[in-house]
C-alpha cells in the first residue's frame, strides 16, 4: 500500500509578467500522474528554495522569460545545495541562449528545455531522472 508519487515544484522566478508556459507545463506534469505544486509569479530564489524544502519535492522546474536566468538559476542551485537538497532534480525552460545552457549545465542544470520542447520530453526527463536518483539513494 506504500506509494511514492513524484512531487514537482513549478516556479517562476523573476519579474516577467505572464505564466502561461509554466501553467501548461504544470498541467502536463499533473496529467502524467505527478503532484505539481505551483507557486505563481514573481518568486524570489529564497522563497522557491524554501517551498521546495517544505513541499519535499523530487524536482524543481523553473520557467523564465525575462533573461535573468544567469543570475537567478545559479542562485537557486546554490541555495538548494546549501540547504542539503542537492538531490533535487533541477531543470528549467524559457528562452535561454546556447552558451548559457552550456554554463548552466556545470551549475546543476543537466538539462534545460527551450521553446521547441514538448511537455512529454520534460515529463519523461523528470520521471527518468527522479527514478535514477531514488534508486541511487536506496543503495
Amino acid at each position, binding site marked *: *500500500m*506504500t506509494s511514492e508519487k513524484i512531487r514537482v515544484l513549478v516556479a517562476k522566478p523573476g519579474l516577467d509578467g505572464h505564466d502561461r508556459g509554466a501553467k501548461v507545463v504544470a498541467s502536463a506534469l499533473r*496529467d*502524467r500522474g505527478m503532484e505539481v505544486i*505551483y*507557486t505563481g509569479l514573481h*518568486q524570489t530564489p529564497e522563497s522557491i528554495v524554501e*517551498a521546495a524544502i517544505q513541499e519535499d519535492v523530487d524536482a524543481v522546474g523553473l520557467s523564465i522569460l525575462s533573461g535573468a536566468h544567469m543570475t537567478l538559476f545559479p542562485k537557486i542551485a546554490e541555495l538548494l545545495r546549501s540547504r542539503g537538497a542537492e538531490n533535487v532534480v533541477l531543470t528549467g525552460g524559457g528562452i535561454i541562449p546556447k552558451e548559457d545552457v552550456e554554463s548552466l549545465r556545470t551549475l546543476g542544470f543537466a538539462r534545460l528545455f527551450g521553446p521547441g520542447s514538448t511537455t512529454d520530453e520534460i515529463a519523461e526527463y523528470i520521471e527518468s531522472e527522479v527514478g535514477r536518483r531514488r534508486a541511487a539513494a536506496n543503495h
Partner: protein
Amino acid sequence: MDSLVERFRSGDRRALARLITRAENRSPGFAETLDAIYGSTGRGFRIGVTGPPGAGKSTIVDGLAAAFRAAGDSVAVLAIDPTSPFTGGALLGDRIRMRCTEDDSNIFVRSMATRGSLGGLARATVDAADLLDAFGYKQIMIETVGVGQAEHDVMTASDVVLVILYPGGGDSVQAMKAGLMEIADIFVVNKSDHPAADRLVDDIEQMLELRARRDAWRPPVVQCVATERRGIAELVLRIENYKSAREAAGDLAARRRERREAQVRRAIEEELALLLFEKSGFQDYITRELDRRRPPYAIAAEVVNLIKNSLKHAI
C-alpha cells in the same frame, strides 16, 4: 529513519518535510515514527478551513497566518487539493494565495493531494498535523479541498472549523443542504465588499436560530474582505473566544479524544484491508468464487465468518 527523527527533534524543517512525505506514502516505519513523536503533540491549535471553491479559503488562511505571526505565534498550513482519479496526478495551487510565506520562511506550508481519500482531506492529514504540532507549530491551519459539500473529516481533524461562504457562491439554503451548517464553529462571510453580503449574513443568522446544536456554542458570523485583510483581526478574536469557551466546557478535550479514536479505527481498517486483500489469499478466493457465479453477499458472509471463527480463539 531514526536519524531523521533526531533531525526533526533538533528543528530541521527538511526532516519535518521528509517525515510528512513518509506518512503520505505510508512508507515502512511511518507508524512507529508517528508513535515516537506522539508524546510531543497536543500543544498546537488546529484550525480547519472549509467552504465552496473560490470562497477565499486560501486568502483567509494567508491573512490569519500574517496575524498569528504578528502576535508572535509560529504558523503551519496544510492545504489539500484533489487527486485526479484518472491520472493520479494533482495540481496543488494554494501556495499562490499565501503571499505571507514570501518574506517569512517561518511559516511552513505543505500542499497535500487527496490520493483517493474522500471527505475533503488526505489520508495522512492528521498525521501531518501531528508532525507539525510535535515540531512546535502553535497555529496549524488545515484548508480542505472545498467542493461545497460538508467535508466531515475536517471536524475530527481540527479543534475549530471555519466555514467560509461568500455572496454569489450559492445561498445559505444550499450551504445548509450541503451540511455545512452542522460542521461550522465559526462562519465567515468573505467578499463582504460585495453588496449582497449583508443578505447572506442575515440568512445565516436566521438558519442558526432554527437549529439546535449538540453543545451550547452559537457560531458567530464574521464578515471579511480577505484580499484587503479586513475582518481578520475580528476572526482571530472569535477563534480565541471559541477556544477558551470550549476549553472551559471540556469539549476541546472530548473533540481531541474523538480524533484519536477515529485515527485508531482508521489505522485498524488500513491494516486489515492490507491483510485481507493483499497479504492473504482472500482476493484470489473472491475472484474464484465469482467465476463460479456465486453471488456477492454469500461470498462476503463466508469470508467474514472465516474471520470471526479465527477471532474466537484470539480474543
